């Protein structure tokens, strides 16, 4: 179990918590985020999602986000696993864990990570809905876009 993973296997929170918490017992706060497949999107009734990744770059981008989080909150460790392939309604597409001596840092690092995932990680949702299917297109990925990074940081600390 690594801190970063892109996998077609179902995601589980507890093993990632165990990995990131470790055995030191020095931390007072563990936060987590689980993103799941929603049954509706922009007025459409969603049937299921297929996630596609450019896996080697997705792993690098996730690692970069963890490095950024560590720069912003130096006492905080983060882990993130992203699923690929077909996901049914309610299944977890992403799990994030942040561990820190301070709850404010743990919450912020967790939120920062999901915001950055949506900005720079090369993963795509193919939404299958009642009556058709559509590729969801969000952000143009540019890891060097400082304005985007600052925006993610601002949201994380709001």
């Amino acid at each position, binding site marked *: 179990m690594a801190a970063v993973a892109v996998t077609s296997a179902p995601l589980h929170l507890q093993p990632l918590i165990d990995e990131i918490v470790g055995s030191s017992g020095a931390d007072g706060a563990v936060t987590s985020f689980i993103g799941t497949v929603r049954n509706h999107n922009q007025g459409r009734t969603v049937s299921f999602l297929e996630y596609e990744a450019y896996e080697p*770059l997705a792993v690098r981008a996730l690692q970069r986000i963890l490095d950024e989080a560590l720069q912003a909150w130096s006492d905080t460790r983060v882990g993130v696993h992203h699923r690929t392939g077909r996901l049914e309604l309610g299944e977890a597409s*992403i799990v994030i864990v942040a561990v820190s001596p301070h709850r404010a840092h743990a919450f912020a690092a967790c939120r920062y990570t999901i915001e950055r995932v949506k900005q720079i990680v090369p993963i*795509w949702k193919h939404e299958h809905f009642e009556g058709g299917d559509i*590729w969801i297109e969000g*952000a*143009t*990925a540019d890891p060097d876009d400082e304005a985007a990074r600052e925006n993610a940081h601002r949201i994380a600390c709001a």
Partner: protein
Amino acid sequence: MRVTVRLFARLRDLAGSGELVREVAPPATVETVWRSLVADMPALGDYERTMSVAVNADYSKMSSRVNEGDEVAFLPPVSGG
């Protein structure tokens, strides 16, 4: 020289394949590879304003140099999470 082109999501659907081997004349940049692709598949052209590019699984720029055997990827706007 030969490069491997990787296409994802809707770009892959439009091209009908996620992986293509392309012949380009050196010296070439990512943009050279993109232009040759769009010449054969004009439907891809709309993505030029919104896509990102990568060389050998690292984010890159249209102006970056491409060498024999490189993997050049064209990435539509992302939607993970």
